[in-house]
């Protein structure tokens, strides 16, 4: 009897499906803890959600009364802002699973950045009078010394007081800059040190780095699975350090980078102010205390930065060199009995003064934009007054976002693609709706263009477009074209480039079909699309 098929067996391989369900369960459980602000913690902020406006006002008053709660609220909003930025970046790169794993770090970095900025603002707020007094004191001491009624040591004491203030301010500014770098780096999932290097100027202008084309190539293979096929294509990659940094910088928009540099320039300006104090004393008395003095640097008794620290923290090679130059000039400056102000000195002083003024102007202009975003979110009192219960909206949205865990987004996806709750679970694992909800509310309170698809205004010199013009409401999200394409393809293909930790929609349950003759068998796999009902 010849061999022929007499039995056909069909078995379902569900191991991969089971693993994915379990991954989704784990992600679902981890998600409630991943933000670091779970439901119970949010409830501890004392917010009344969905209440009438009177109850909302009570919540606002409670915030205003309790400084600690205001800070916690600020940290929460900063965390939500950072998470939203990171979410948009994950949409662009397709690395959703990496973003989900990194959410704890994003929140921690955001909170640290908020604290650092808060410290700086607090210091500036309370130090203004002291700063003014110190400057006035130094001027008076110099005048007294010139008139012969004061002593050189009094001038030097007054200079020390001013430099102490400036050093402290510089420390807070540098710390805020550093924390902001770390926060942005965590948002985008890049290395903070490399980001600092890229912005340092060591590799040239960051704009030029961003526009640097990739020259390296890499062969990427794709397989055809059980049924063969597949192929390869050439992918452009970074060939050297400059291109690698440029590739990283492309994840940031120009506004973010300008604001970041503006923040760094604050500390730079303070460093130059410190140097100017020493030159002022040198010009007035012919010497400085300790002979060398410091530029942007710190003596052992001061809380400032040495040029080496400057170079390490800011990596701005030019300013490091400048600081070293100033240091060496002061160190080698001869001790003279009468102050000599040469033409050259005047020119240098004028150059420094102009530089400081230019930097100050640029810093203020660029900081306006940052303040526009920050104020609209962080200031609880300002948010309550005038706008339509934004505190309740923002707070409610954040709590809703944590509480609903992508449910509203899944409903929209369910209607759009006609997939059932099983498919919804895949989206629940990503927590997309959480951030869409938080993002739309935060966006609705910000002004600016939406070209970047984020909350950072894109054009602050031109038209200021408010959401009222577009009639946006809670639950809506602004995405730019590239992000829309990414999200749409992920929805349509049930997977695509999205690297989910658990994929149910589009996951194939494999059926093994074996044909057996009396003595020989020929097995084949049948892969069916699970969840797609045509």
């Amino acid at each position, binding site marked *: *009897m*010849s*061999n*022929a*098929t*007499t*039995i*056909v*067996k*069909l*078995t*379902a391989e*569900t191991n991969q*499906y*089971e693993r994915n*369900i379990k991954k*989704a*369960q784990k992600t*679902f*459980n981890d998600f*409630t803890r991943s933000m670091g602000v779970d*439901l*119970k913690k*949010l*409830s*501890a*902020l*004392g917010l*009344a*959600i*969905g209440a009438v406006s009177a*109850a909302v006002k*009570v*919540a606002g008053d*409670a915030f205003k*009364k*309790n400084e600690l*709660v205001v800070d916690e609220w600020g940290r929460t909003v900063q965390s939500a802002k950072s998470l939203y930025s990171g979410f948009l970046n994950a949409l662009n790169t397709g690395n959703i699973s990496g973003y989900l794993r990194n959410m704890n770090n994003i929140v921690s970095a955001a909170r640290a950045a908020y604290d650092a900025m808060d410290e700086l603002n607090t210091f500036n707020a309370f130090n203004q009078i002291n700063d003014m007094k110190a400057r006035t004191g130094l001027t008076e001491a110099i005048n007294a010394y010139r008139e012969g009624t004061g002593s050189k040591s009094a001038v030097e004491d007054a200079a020390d007081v001013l430099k102490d203030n400036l050093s402290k301010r510089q420390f807070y500014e540098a710390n805020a800059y550093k924390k902001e770098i770390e926060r942005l780096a965590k948002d985008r999932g890049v290395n903070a040190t490399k980001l600092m290097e890229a912005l340092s100027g060591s590799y040239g202008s960051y704009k030029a780095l961003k526009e640097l084309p990739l020259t390296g190539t890499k062969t990427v293979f794709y397989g055809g699975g059980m049924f063969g096929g597949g192929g390869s294509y050439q992918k452009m990659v970074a060939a050297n350090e400059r291109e690698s940094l440029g590739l990283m910088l492309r994840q940031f928009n120009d506004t973010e980078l300008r604001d970041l540099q503006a923040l760094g320039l604050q500390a730079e300006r303070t460093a130059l102010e410190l140097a100017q104090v020493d030159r002022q004393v040198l010009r007035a008395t012919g010497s400085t205390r300790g002979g060398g003095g410091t530029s942007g640097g710190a003596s052992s008794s001061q809380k400032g930065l040495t040029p080496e620290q400057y170079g390490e923290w800011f990596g701005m090679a030019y300013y490091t060199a400048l600081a070293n130059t100033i240091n060496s000039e002061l160190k080698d400056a001869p001790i003279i009995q009468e102050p000599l102000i040469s033409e050259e000195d005047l020119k240098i002083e004028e150059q420094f003064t102009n530089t400081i003024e230019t930097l100050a102007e640029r810093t203020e202009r660029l900081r306006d934009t940052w303040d526009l975003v920050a104020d609209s979110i962080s200031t609880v009192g300002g948010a309550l007054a005038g706008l339509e219960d934004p505190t309740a909206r923002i707070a*409610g949205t954040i*709590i809703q976002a944590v*509480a*609903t*865990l992508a*449910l*509203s987004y899944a*409903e929209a996806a369910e209607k759009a693609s006609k997939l*059932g*709750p*099983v498919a*919804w*679970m895949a989206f*629940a694992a990503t927590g997309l709706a959480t951030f869409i909800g938080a993002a739309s509310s935060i966006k609705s309170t910000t002004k600016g263009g939406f070209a970047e698809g984020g909350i950072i205004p894109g054009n602050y010199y031109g038209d200021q477009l408010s959401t009222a013009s577009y009639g946006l409401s809670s639950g809506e999200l602004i995405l730019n074209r590239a992000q829309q394409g990414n999200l749409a393809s992920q929805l349509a293909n049930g997977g695509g480039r999205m690297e989910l930790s658990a994929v149910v929609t589009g996951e194939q*349950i494999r*059926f093994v*079909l074996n*044909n057996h003759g009396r003595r020989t068998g020929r097995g084949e796999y*049948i892969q*069916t699309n*699970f969840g797609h*009902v045509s």
Partner: protein
Amino acid sequence: MGRLSDYINGAGAGRRGTATSSVDGIKVEVNNALIDQHRRAMARLLVTDPDTRKRLKAAIRQEIKNARTKTMADVHNSLDNDPRKAYRAVKYSVYKQVLGGNESILSSRKAGARYMLIRPRKLDENPNQRGGNRIPRSDRTIALDTYFGKDRGFVLRFLNSGTAERTSKYGNRGSIKARHIFANSAPGRMSAAAEAISRAFAEEFEAAYNEEMKQ
């Protein structure tokens, strides 16, 4: 699926218990029960869940049964003359331990199993009859009685697989050419069954999930 009100100060808050916190006299109730409900519903999606497994096996049984029906029809249509209804030899089974099944034309693995086609002797049914059969036998009776195979599949397997040239002491007996009746039909039908099972699985998972959420 769920709205804010379901989680906070909403439906179900009283049924399942809530977490309450207050700061400075402002209270908010948070309902974690709905999230737990989703977790339980996700557990129902696992194949190892007994109830879900039972539903899936029922779906497999239904689809393989449909495949068997179609295969039988294909076999029946491909046989011109089939007095003993050999096409009914196509059988199906659903596995107990794994999710799957098969259809085949193999005989039972149990030795000595008897089938309807094994006709008992006439005298066994009529012990009081004496003498020969005076009742004329119908064509059908003759056709059935002249075949002593254990099951219908015995014939079908020969027709399906064919035989080699055979020679007996009486001479050359020739061979039966293989028609591959089962092979031409069954794999295709089972492939279609796999697609149908996949759709049925999706529906069953959805039903299990919704069932849990309704509780």
